Structure formats: structure tokens, C-alpha cells
């Protein structure tokens, strides 16, 4: 698939994949593709950061490699590991047939290397297969891992002490996401393009709901988006994101509803909130969200 050559082309390409975005995000994606720089996406949970990478990979016809970050993530899970069992077996076999010394030099070859996502991305690129590398929820990883990423993000190469440096001529399209539970170090951000994804406008959300919940009643879709928009202006502990809107819309479609009323909202509130305090607060406020003029 050809690369988009303008911001409009990016918007259109993502829309074909069912991802609707404004030109600000599209600008970030466009520059990331053209300048070969990583794109760093921040935003509240459920606004579609991960989804963006998935759609992008699909529309560009590239392989998506995803690295989910967590506390304690280390090089052997993120980059590479030696296949010890295989090394041991071949040592045993070699010991029977040939002098062991030769075999010892051999066991640190590419065939004994287990690629983890980051090395996998670089190797795929060097073999001519373009990839989209998604490094998801970087804020969950430790600072040490961030420091390691610095080398990777600036040179796109990995040094394996026993083997040498693995690099590629082309650069993978890297998307990093963060829910911002902590600040990511400036050094990382300086190497990336930055974009803050906000909640979509009701109009944009309507497009998304229509695309993701096919067969939804037009009035219901509009009701949902306006309802969500009002909801997000209130101060909940975990404000529902687009993901919640979609869950809710799909639930309402299953229930064969064509509009919102207090009864159905109360029954399906578990799609929106997953927290006791929020649920209680929401329960008290339903009438207000649905009230006079609220959904007109």
C-alpha cells in the first residue's frame, strides 16, 4: 500500500479503516511517516491511542508488532533472549561428533536467538518487511527501560554483546502511547513527535459510533454521543472514553433500543462506569443528563 502524501490523505486512509480523527492527529501521523520519527501519543484511557496504531498498520499494509509495557519489563522480554535449551542440546550433539571448541563459538548465532518485539521489528525491517511498532503504555515501564529505548529510538539498532549490532536501513513506524500516570522523561519525548489525544467532539464521536456499531438507530446514536459529551464534563474518577461509548452503543443495539430513557440507562450503566463511587454519583445524576433539552 502506498504511503499517504498529504494530511488529507492520512485522514482519508484512517477513515477507511474506521478511525476518524481531526487534522491535528493526522498531521502527527503524516510527519511520523515522512520524517521517520516516532510518534508519542498521550491521552486519557479509552480515547483510541492503541486503536490508531492498529488501524494504521492495517491500512499501510504493514505488520503490527506490539510491546505491552509493564513494571519490571526487561531486555529479555522486550528485545532478545538466547534459546538456552537449544544451545545446550546442540552442544551435547556437537560434543559427540566434533571438538567442543568449534561448537562453542557457534552457539551464539542467529539461529539461537529468540527475537522479542523490539528486535523483531528491526529484523523485519532489515529483511524488507515494513512494520508498525507499537510500544503501548510506556508509563507503566520502569525508568531503566526508558533509558534503553533512547538508543533504540534514535538509531534503530540493537547491540547484542555476543553477536554484534543489528540494525536496518529503513526505520519502522513507531507509535508510543502513555496514559500519563507519570511523566515520561524529556529525552524520550525529544526524539518523538508529540500529540495529545482529547475526547472527540460529539460529531466526531457520532461518526465513530456509526462505524463501529453498524445497524444502530440514528436517533439512538446521536443521543448516546450527546449524553457522553455531557457526562465527560462532570468530574468522575474515571471518565468514560470512546471505548465505553462503543460498548454501550453495542449493548443498546443488542437490546433493540432506538432511544435513551432513564430505565435503560440505569440498566446498562455498568457499560460506562467500573467504580462504586462513580456509579453512585452517576445514578443520582441520570435525570440531569437526560433532562429537558439535554438531548435535543
Amino acid at each position, binding site marked *: 500500500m502506498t504511503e499517504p502524501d498529504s*494530511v488529507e490523505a492520512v485522514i482519508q486512509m484512517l477513515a477507511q479503516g474506521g478511525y476518524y480523527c481531526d*487534522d*491535528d492527529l493526522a*498531521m*502527527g501521523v*503524516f*510527519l511520523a511517516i*515522512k*520524517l521517520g*520519527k516516532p510518534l*508519542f501519543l*498521550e491521552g486519557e484511557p479509552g480515547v483510541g491511542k492503541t486503536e490508531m496504531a492498529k488501524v494504521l498498520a492495517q491500512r499501510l499494509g504493514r505488520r503490527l508488532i506490539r510491546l505491552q509495557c*509493564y*513494571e519490571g519489563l526487561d531486555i529479555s522480554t522486550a528485545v532478545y533472549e*538466547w534459546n*538456552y*535449551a537449544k*544451545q*545446550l542440546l546442540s*552442544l*551435547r550433539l556437537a*560434543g559427540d561428533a566434533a571438538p*567442543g571448541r568449534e561448537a*562453542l563459538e557457534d*552457539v551464539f548465532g542467529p539461529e539461537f536467538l529468540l527475537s522479542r518485539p523490539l528486535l523483531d521489528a528491526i529484523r523485519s525491517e532489515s529483511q524488507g518487511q515494513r512494520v508498525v511498532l507499537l510500544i503501548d503504555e510506556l*508509563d*507503566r515501564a*520502569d*525508568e531503566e527501560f526508558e533509558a534503553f529505548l533512547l538508543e533504540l529510538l534514535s538509531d534503530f539498532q540493537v547491540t547484542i554483546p555476543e553477536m554484534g549490532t543489528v540494525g536496518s536501513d529503513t526505520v519502522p513506524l513507531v507509535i508510543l502511547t502513555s496514559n*500519563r*500516570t*507519570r*511523566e515520561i*522523561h*524529556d529525552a524520550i*519525548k*525529544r526524539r*518523538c*513527535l*508529540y*500529540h*495529545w489525544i482529547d475526547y472527540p467532539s460529539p460529531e466526531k464521536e457520532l461518526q465513530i459510533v456509526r462505524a463501529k456499531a453498524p445497524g444502530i438507530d440514528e436517533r439512538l446514536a446521536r443521543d448516546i454521543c450527546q449524553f457522553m459529551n455531557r457526562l465527560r464534563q462532570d*468530574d468522575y*474518577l*474515571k471518565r468514560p472514553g470512546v471505548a465505553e461509548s462503543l460498548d454501550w452503543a453495542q449493548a443498546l443495539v443488542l437490546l433493540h433500543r432506538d432511544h435513551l430513557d432513564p430505565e435503560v440507562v440505569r440498566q446498562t450503566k455498568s457499560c460506562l462506569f467500573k467504580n462504586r*463511587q462513580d456509579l453512585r454519583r452517576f445514578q443520582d445524576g441520570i435525570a440531569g443528563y437526560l433532562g429537558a433539552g439535554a438531548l435535543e
Partner: protein
Amino acid sequence: MKGSRQRLLQGSLTQAMLAFAQRLRADKFIITPNHLSDCLRAMDLVGMASRRRFRLMLESLLVSNQEELFRFREHFADFWQDQPLLAQDDAPPKTLLSREGPAAARSITSVQMESAQDDQRETIGAGLEIVKSSMDFSKLRLEDLEQVQSQVLRMARKLGKRLSRRQRSVKRARKLDVRRSLRRGLQHGGEIVAPVFRARRQGRLQIYALVDISGSMAVYGYFFLLFLHSLQKVWPSTQSYVFSTHLTPVSQHLAENDFGRAWNLVLASGANWSGGTDMGESFFDFYRKHLRPASASRAVVIVVSDGWDRGAAGRMGEAMDLIGQHCRRLYWLNPLLSSDKYEPICQGMSQALPHLDYFLPFYNLKTLEDFCHSLEGGGDLGRWSGSRIWAEACEAGQAGTTT
């Protein structure tokens, strides 16, 4: 012909870009030559037809967090508005945006310190050479700062060392580490000579510190941030925030080597200094955005404040309840505990008390040391248990009702 005009425009645009970068740098944006060359390349790609597109492009390249985004937009509007986008003039950078809040706060701190200094002269005299660890921070003289700083740094280093020792002191729960055993075995031709064991690492403490920097707390806030600045060097996962009307993360500023510079960055970080303190909202914000659920079992949350809350009644109690449920230990350090007569009866404090694990004084080096000791898990803190103090206050009929 068209080519030469294009070049001319490009030239003036490059100059304007340089001037704009200068201006951003003056406002603490980090703009490297790499950024600038990326900008120039991106201009070719995106074109200059739309002002909005031009702004979005620069935003993608030059902004690195949400706070910067708002400042960037101000600068952009101001800088590129006055002149046509492709104007020939060499666009001198404008003066920095004036920041009244931090400036005011800076003067508050210095005024408080100066006046305290005068009191000190009367009571202690000018010949004092060693700062006693029992001396109240607000009574310190400006020239004592350096000495206090070095003591605080020493304390933080000691704490850092003790905290990291925690992981090594594991005696039981040994498990064979197959991967490492096999790997070591390779040296002996595949025979496992000395098996390697794996011990469960004790979870590293995740420290979150929330420091009140409203007017009444400015001096104590300063000293606690000084402590955090040192602590962060030895315990890098420490996350620090300041709050008054809202919460601002400052760990990145505290990563500066020089505390003076770090302090100025904190002052300039947009925290609202002059307004009242809305603790409930600040704490909710902290819970919602910053307290990582995954680290709940290892999290230690430290609040440094005098408890004067101007927010809505009840919010504070709710927020503290939530935070208390999602961390291992919840500390509150209060400078007002320096007085024996202090009773935690103000609205904020009485709501927070039942949820606290520890309610400790913080007003001099001695109290800071005690606090460090308790963080390491030492010392008998029964006397400072938050819920116990609350229960006593209730019995005496002095604490307000809580939610």
C-alpha cells in the same frame, strides 16, 4: 523566477523560525538543532498554505507535553500574528510572558524568610554557627540554607541506601533459576555444576509526595521539596507533586542538578500560588491521573500540608479514603504539630485524619529525620497513628464530623 522567489521566502522563513525557536527556548522549551532541521523539512512536506496546518506541524515537532501545548499556542498566536507568515522582517523575539503568580510566591518565600530572620536575631543572636536540628524551618536565616541543604542531602542519601537494601535481605522462598543455571552450565559444556537460585525481590517502594505550596506553607514546602530533590537522586522512582488550587507534577523539574534552578522551575510551572487551597480536588486529580493501580501494594503517599482546605466540604474525606485504599501507607506531615496546643479541627484535617496511617510533625531537621526513619519501617509510631489521633480528638469532642 519562481524558484528564486521561493528561495527568498524560505530564507526569511528560516530566520523567523530561528527567532521563534529563540523565544520558545526563553520559555524553557527544549529546542535542539535537530528539531529545527526537522521543522524545515516538515515545512517542505506540509506547505505553507494554511496557518492552522503550519501551527499543527510545529506543535507536533516542538511540544512535548500537555502543559507546553497551551504555552506554545500563546507564543504561536503572539509571534506569528503580528507579522504576515512569510514576512521579510527579522522578527526580534519578544520579552518573556510575565508570570505574576510565581513571582509573587517567590517574594512570599523570601519575605517570610527575611522576617523570620529578624525574629531569630532577637532570640538566638548572630553568632550561631551550627544549625540545630530542632530549629524550626521558618526561623532559619538565609545564610544557614547551605548547611541545611547538605544535612538534608545526607539524610536522603541514607534513606535511599536503606530503602534499596530492603530487596537484598531475603532469606527464604528460593527457587531454581533454570535460565541462568543453564547459561552458566554452558561454560562447563552443558553440565549444571552450580545451580543458580532466584529469590523473590521485595517490592520497591513507590514514593509519591504531594506538597502544599500555598502561602501559609511556602517555607515548609520549600524544605520538603529540597528533601525530595535529594531523595530523587538516590530513589529515582519518586514522584513529586505540588498543589494549591490544582495539582502539578514537578518530578521533572526536581531532576535538575541545582536545587535553586529546580525551585525556579517549580515556581514557573504554572502552579497557582496566590489562590486558596482546594485539596479535595487536587487529591482526586492525583488519584485519578497519577496513582498507578499496579503499584498500589508498594505505594507510599506522603502529603505535606497544614490542612487548611478551602474546597467543597466532604470532597477531601472522599479523596483521602480512595487514596488510602490504594496505597500501602499514607503519611501526612503537618508543620502545625510543632505546637503542643494544635488540635486537628479545621475542616480538611479532620476529614483526612481517619484515613491516615501516620500523622507526623514536620517543621525541623529532627522531625524530617524521624519521618525518614519511619519510612524505612523503623521506630514506634503508635503515637502518631492517624486514626488514633482522630479517635482521641473525637472523644474530646473537637474533631468535626466526617463523611
